[in-house]
């Protein structure tokens, strides 16, 4: 049980490193996605602590997991897709305006224009 949590923790740190440290905008968007995946996995893991069967009622289902985190994470995944799409569209726009995806180069070129 602890090893999954440590892996999720590392996943969150990887995503955060990409958001803060990467110079490329596309890599930053990937980092957002990885952080989102870490949060989703954490919720699913927490919800699955009190059971071991899929939350689909039927014969033999007596000890199902908590379906509430799963339903919440459905929302989180869709919002993650929306955020990714919008961020990528903005990245395309920045690339067309400045010809680069590196934030330092973009900063330089935008500053030299004004």
């Amino acid at each position, binding site marked *: 049980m602890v090893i999954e949590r440590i892996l*999720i923790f590392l996943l969150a740190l990887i995503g955060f490193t990409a958001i803060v440290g990467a110079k490329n905008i596309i890599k930053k968007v990937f980092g957002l996605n990885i952080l989102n995946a870490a949060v989703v996995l954490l919720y699913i893991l927490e919800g699955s602590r009190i059971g071991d069967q899929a939350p689909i009622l039927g014969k033999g289902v007596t000890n199902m997991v908590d379906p509430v985190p799963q339903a919440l994470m459905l929302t989180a995944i869709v919002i993650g897709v929306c955020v990714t799409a919008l961020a990528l569209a903005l990245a395309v726009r920045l690339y067309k305006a400045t010809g680069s995806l590196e934030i330092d180069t973009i900063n330089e070129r935008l500053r030299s224009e004004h």
Partner: protein
Amino acid sequence: MKRTLFIIKITFTLLVLALAIFPVILSSHPWPEASRDYLYEHALTDTGAVNTVSSIYLGYRAMDTLGETLVLLVSITGTMGILINLGRESEEEEAVSFSLAPEKRPTNAQRTHLLEVVSSKLGPVVLLFGFYVMLYGHISPGGGFQGGVIVASAIVFLALGTETQTKLTNTNVLGRIEALSFLVLIVAATSGVFFESGFFGNPIKSGSSLSANFIILLNIIIGLKVGTSIAVMCIAMMGGRRGH
């Protein structure tokens, strides 16, 4: 020097973040069982869906789903608004794209035989599977959102293929399907008002064998909405606005 400073900054930030989220992730606080037990007892009779995840997001928390589709709608609007005027002045940059329509594509350099042969034939199969996941969302793993994403990937397959004679990859058609499904969603949500069950309430009396039909209807509508909107975004990002 600058590089070292950067690495030190990143490490410090990560350490602070690790201290903040480590207790959250490693907490061994017992998970409450009340909601699970309540849903185990009542979900089937309240909403008619065997899949309790479906019964939450289309029954108990259907309002949340409406907000979610609104977020999706706003995101699509923003993305299309940003993307729609791009690429007009720099057509030569897109010449290397392998995803354009055949008549706009000057070279087939990046299109492998795999892409040529497989994608347009795989499209209909994936589309069928997407509708299966959508229609059986109330009794098996799946549902509107999952099926919708599979439908979107099927439409992307169709758009990548060469010899597809389908209107499904036309962004105008997809946009109309999306708008229509959102309208039907609002109408279906309001229909509960006239049957004394409230906004987003199930108009069919709970407990009857037909009450799952409302969940199926909402699953189909949401699947169509999600599928078409994500497909529109993907096709716009591929530069293949074939409707124009």
